[in-house]
């Protein structure tokens, strides 16, 4: 299971990459493996204001639909438009081309409350 050291994680299997006052978010390798083949991603709207822990988007695989939760609070400033035609990016490259959106942080302290790689690895290995 791939868990990059430079990311932060949630217990709901989302990751966040800190980019200054913004975070790029997606789902983890563990999450994409559990979902199976992703066939549809409802990307959030640019400008949407989200609260940590609230549903930010929905991902559908051939077997189920899953809610994706905002790992931190903020405003959506960029979304991955490629996912409309290529939702399989979440399976193929969950930490790279499978990113879902970028949030402008409302409260930087929320990021430090997220799990680090060791903490997330302990969660999924447990």
């Amino acid at each position, binding site marked *: 299971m791939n868990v990059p050291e430079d990311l932060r994680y949630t217990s709901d299997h989302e990751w966040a990459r800190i980019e200054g006052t913004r975070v790029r978010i997606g789902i983890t390798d563990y999450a994409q493996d559990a979902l199976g083949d992703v*066939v*549809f991603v409802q990307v959030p709207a640019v400008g949407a204001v989200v609260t940590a822990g609230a549903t930010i988007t929905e991902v559908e695989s*051939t*077997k189920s*639909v899953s809610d994706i939760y905002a790992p931190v609070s903020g405003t959506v400033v960029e979304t991955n438009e490629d996912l409309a035609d290529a939702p399989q990016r979440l*399976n193929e490259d969950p930490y790279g081309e499978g990113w879902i959106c970028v949030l402008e942080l409302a409260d930087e302290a929320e990021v430090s409350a997220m799990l680090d790689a060791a903490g997330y690895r302990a969660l999924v290995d447990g």
Partner: protein
Amino acid sequence: MALLLSPLDAAHRALGAKTSPFGGWDMPLAYGQGTLAEHRACRTDAAIFDVSHLGTVRVTGSHAFELLQRSLTNDLSKITPGRAQYTHLLDPDDGSVVDDIIVWWVGVDRFDVMPNASNTSGVLAALGGDDVTRGRAILAVQGPHARRRLASVAPVAAEVGHFEVAEVDVLGAGCVVAGTGYTGEPGVEIAVPAADATRVWEAIVAAGVTPAGLGARDTLRLEAGLPLHGHELGPGITPLQAGLGWVVGWDKGDFRGRAALEAERARGIARRLRGVAIEGRRPPREHQAVTAGGEVVGEVTSGNFSPTLEHGIALAFVRPDLKPGDAVEVDLRGTPTPGRIVKLPFVKTG
């Protein structure tokens, strides 16, 4: 209750299968490549599925033909020994489908009746016979090149034609082979003794046939417009509502549920199973509402993303006046999404 395991369970785990409970059995959902790749392998080449969870109820003896003829809907006199037939077992009171079944007429006085996994006990109770499910595995080899690839392992089995049934030796194992399946593709299903199942499976896989799980089997049968018991068939659903009137042998004598079915035929069906093609990739799901002109006209029973068509498809019970070509909407988790009633199958094959 502990889940039952297929005779092929160890082979599946060696291939890295993800498994899922299905009708009381722990069966492969997908292997390493995933459902979409397995689906495409079956549509373009050949795939092999373990469907050992299906039941086999063996009905034998000189009375067997008459017993099945008055218990099941289809007319067995339309076929002969060495043939298979799709048929239904109905509830005697309301004509709803207790199970949909393939009957393999193996020998003059021997029928292998193949129920859905979770209905085996109900079919056994209705028909009698012997439950021989645990003594064998069933391998479904399906796809446009299924017979050609199978021929390198079992040439005689590969020649069993569409809806034919034959007792065939496969690699020294005494098997029953039927030209049946649930994918819309040509191919065969092989009932192989449990003790021989793994080596037969491995030989077919080595011949270039892709192992595929029940996830792909479901998207394949949906594209082929085939009903799944518990979704398109079941309590409260008759063969006429499901558009399967051809399964009913009206010209034969009495059978279980006939009176109820005749009454429904006389008054007309209240709903009809139809295919709905959805705009966009989002998969429709069971229980979502179908609307037309702002009014609810039906409900989805199965839906998914069609890997072949690359858009959403659904089977749905709708108002009987709706016809192929009619515009509808499906409520995809709060998003009304345009679609159209279409003729089945969604994907033409074979």
